[in-house]
Structure formats: structure tokens, C-alpha cells
């Protein structure tokens, strides 16, 4: 850990451009998080690293901006009746355990296989999980859109019906988002997996939100809002852990927070204007695009580990840049869809308002 502290002493110098860059990335990340409950972190950490911030300090500082952001987002969405605090806390605590376990695995991999091994593990987790979960979420959103039932209440999946029907005495807890009792023996592994993913790829929500929707049976809007509670619990624990080792750069964390609090408020407002399947559209799209971004990096790490022919420096650099570019594109596209949906929702509301006023005038 002494090495880490030494590394932390390497806090970068901030200039106006750096501050503006972090503020903007924070804003876009916050906007997406406010809407789908997570996201942003997968761009923020590499964005900080591209400025010369050491990897661990970037992860720690990202974590420290995440929990206050999630808190504000959760409070805002609670006003709209979208948050299930109990489910968030139950999942959040088990996620915390998942984070600790996931971090331990990361450390062991790093010790045995070095940075390239650890990066390969992270990329492989990205690719496998995002391919399975991302395409499933996107396909589900597409089916809802095609069926024309976007206004109808979301139906429970078969799996969720089954999970809700199993009664294990002494472990049953009522959750308002599910309007049913579910055994905590089901929620604990889901929370744990969310935490493990958060420790590995920084975005636990890519498992947390789909599992709340498809496994437990929560509506999309409530699942994405409740994820903010999980992110808060996980982020707070993680930040304390990193801060105790002196790894958090408070300036970076607070500058990103400055932008992301503008974003998260807007993203949360956006959820009141859209149909529930839009949460799945944005989440699924981001997951699938990020998947391609990470897949591009796999050959780089394989080559660093000597498992394939060594790639030229120019090719490595190009792959890195393209991968980072695609990730930024995923985030910007997500933000664009949120803003567009919100804009359209507001226009419809204004037209209805004008129509009602006209009607009222006639009477």
C-alpha cells in the first residue's frame, strides 16, 4: 500500500482546459446516470488517465464523485416516487461485499500477471457481460417498440414471476417496487454481482438495473432510480476505503461533481417525460457500443502479455485512441437520446396544455 500512497502523491497540476474538460465529461456522465441510474464512470476513469492521472487515483477519485452524485440523483428521483429505498439498501450492502471481493480478485490478478493481465481481465469482463446483458436489454426494448405497447405497464418476466413466487420462510422481505415479497437469498447474489462488476469495470449498474427488471420484476423507471441508492452505498464505502490510503484527489472528484450535478438533475427530470422502454434503449445502446470499444483493446493486452504477435506502437496507439473515441461516442449518444426524448416530451406537454386551454376557452 506504500507504493499506492507514493503514487497518490503524484496528483496532477490543473489548468483551465483540464478543469473545463473534466466538467464537461462530468456533465454528460451525470446526465446519463440520472436517467439510467449508472454509466459515465467507464468514460470518466479513462478520461482522467488520459490527463496523466495514475490509474488507482483515477478510480478512487471517480468513486468519490460517484456517491455524492448518486445521493443527489436518488433524492431527486425519490420526489417522483421512483425510488425503492429498502431494495436499494439491501442490494447496496451486498454490493459492498461484492466490491471488496472484486477488488481482491483484481489485486491478485495484478500481482500475478501485471498491468496487462489486469487490463485483459477487465476488458474480457466488459466484453462478455456487456455482450450478453446489453444485447438482451436492447432486444427487449426493440420488441416493446415493435409491439406498439410502449404505453402499457411493463409485464413481469417469467423468471421474475418465479422468483416472486418462491417462499423461503424467514428470508422474505416486502419491496414496494416489486409490490411483492422476495427472499433476500435472491437479492444478495444480485447485489454481490453488481458490486463485483463495479469493482471490475466501474459500472455495477449494467448488472444491477437489468437484474432488478428481469430477475426481481421491478419497473424500469424504479430499477434505474433504485440503482442510484446502490451506487451511493457502494460509492461511500469505496471512497472511504480509497481515501484511507490517500488515493483520492479531492480536486478532480469535486470538479467532476460540479458538472455531474448539473447533469444528474437534468437526467432525473428527463425520466418523467419518457416511456419506460427508453431507459432500456439508452442502457442497451450504451452497453453494446462500449462493448466494441473494449473489444478493440483486447489484442493490445494479449500482445503485451506475449500471447499473440507483438503489435506495433503505432497500431497500439491507434487502437487505444479509437477505443476511447467510441466510449465517448457511447456516452454522447446516450446523452443525446435523453435530451431529445425530454425535448419531445416537453413539446407534447405544451401542446396538450395549449389544447386544454383552448377547450376551456370554448366552454
Amino acid at each position: 500500500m506504500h507504493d499506492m500512497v507514493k503514487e497518490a502523491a503524484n496528483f496532477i497540476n490543473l489548468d483551465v482546459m483540464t478543469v473545463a474538460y473534466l466538467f464537461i465529461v462530468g456533465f454528460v456522465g451525470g446526465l446519463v446516470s440520472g436517467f439510467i441510474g449508472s454509466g459515465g464512470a467507464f468514460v470518466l476513469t479513462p478520461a482522467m488517465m488520459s490527463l496523466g492521472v495514475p490509474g488507482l487515483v483515477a478510480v478512487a477519485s471517480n468513486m468519490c464523485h460517484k456517491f455524492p452524485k448518486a445521493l443527489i440523483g436518488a433524492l431527486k428521483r425519490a420526489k417522483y416516487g421512483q425510488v425503492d429505498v429498502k431494495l436499494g439498501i439491501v442490494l447496496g450492502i451486498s454490493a459492498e461485499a461484492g466490491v471488496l471481493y472484486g477488488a481482491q480478485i483484481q489485486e491478485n490478478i495484478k500481482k500475478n500477471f501485471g498491468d496487462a493481465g489486469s487490463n485483459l481481465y477487465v476488458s474480457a469482463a466488459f466484453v462478455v457481460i456487456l455482450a450478453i446483458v446489453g444485447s438482451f436489454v436492447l432486444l427487449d426494448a426493440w420488441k416493446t417498440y415493435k409491439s406498439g405497447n410502449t404505453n402499457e405497464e411493463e409485464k413481469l418476466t417469467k423468471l421474475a414471476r418465479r422468483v416472486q413466487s418462491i417462499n423461503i420462510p424467514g428470508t422474505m422481505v416486502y419491496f414496494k417496487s416489486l409490490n411483492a415479497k422476495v427472499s433476500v437469498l435472491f437479492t444478495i447474489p444480485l447485489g454481490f454481482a453488481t458490486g463485483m462488476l463495479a469493482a471490475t469495470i466501474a459500472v455495477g449498474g449494467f448488472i444491477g438495473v437489468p437484474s432488478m427488471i428481469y430477475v426481481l420484476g421491478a419497473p424500469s423507471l424504479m430499477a434505474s432510480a433504485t440503482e442510484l441508492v446502490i451506487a451511493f452505498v457502494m460509492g461511500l464505502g469505496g471512497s472511504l476505503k480509497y481515501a484511507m490510503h490517500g488515493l483520492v484527489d479531492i480536486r478532480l472528484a469535486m470538479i467532476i461533481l460540479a458538472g455531474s450535478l448539473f447533469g444528474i438533475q437534468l437526467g432525473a427530470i428527463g425520466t418523467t417525460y419518457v416511456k419506460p422502454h427508453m431507459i432500456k434503449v439508452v442502457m442497451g445502446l450504451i452497453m453494446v457500443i462500449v462493448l466494441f470499444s473494449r473489444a478493440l483493446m483486447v489484442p493490445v493486452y494479449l500482445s503485451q502479455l506475449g500471447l499473440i504477435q507483438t503489435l506495433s506502437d503505432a497500431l497500439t496507439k491507434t487502437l487505444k485512441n479509437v477505443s476511447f473515441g467510441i466510449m465517448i461516442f457511447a456516452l454522447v449518444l446516450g446523452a443525446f437520446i435523453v435530451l431529445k426524448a425530454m425535448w419531445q416530451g416537453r413539446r407534447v406537454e405544451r401542446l396538450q396544455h395549449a389544447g386544454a386551454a383552448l377547450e376551456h376557452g370554448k366552454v
Partner: protein
Amino acid sequence: MKKDGGEMSEKKKKPYAGMTLMGIISVGMYAALLLNQDFLNNYFGHGGAYAFLLVATAFAFSFVHGSFTGHFWTVLGVEAAKKKREVK
């Protein structure tokens, strides 16, 4: 957006005072943070019990800046849909 804002002001007053107050405090806190970078990094870089101070700082920023950004969008007229899509 202006049109919306106009409609809103008839119903309830916009939080100009709250936004200004929180905005000033927020700017002050950020100025203090950026002007004392070395001092802060030196302390928080020690780790240990300073972690609690660091987390408390993050909470303070989120409270002040969060209130400011909330008021900011309200003043601009960007608010939640009137007919809330509450989930049962």
C-alpha cells in the same frame, strides 16, 4: 423554455434567492478548493482518519452545489412533467 417559465411564475415563485445564495456559496467553496490545492492534497493524501474529513467535504459540496443545480434548472423552467409518470 421562456414560455414555460412564464407559465410557471404565475403558479409559484421561482427560487431566484435560493439559487443565488447557493450559487455564491458553491463558487466560494470551489474557489477555496482550487486556491488551496497543495494544502488539501497534502492533508487528504495522508489517508487514515483524514478519509472521514474528505468524505465530509464531498457531502458538503454535494449539498450546496446540488441545491444550486436543482434551483438552476427550475429557474430556467426545466422541470419534471406535470403529470408525473409515477410507477405503481
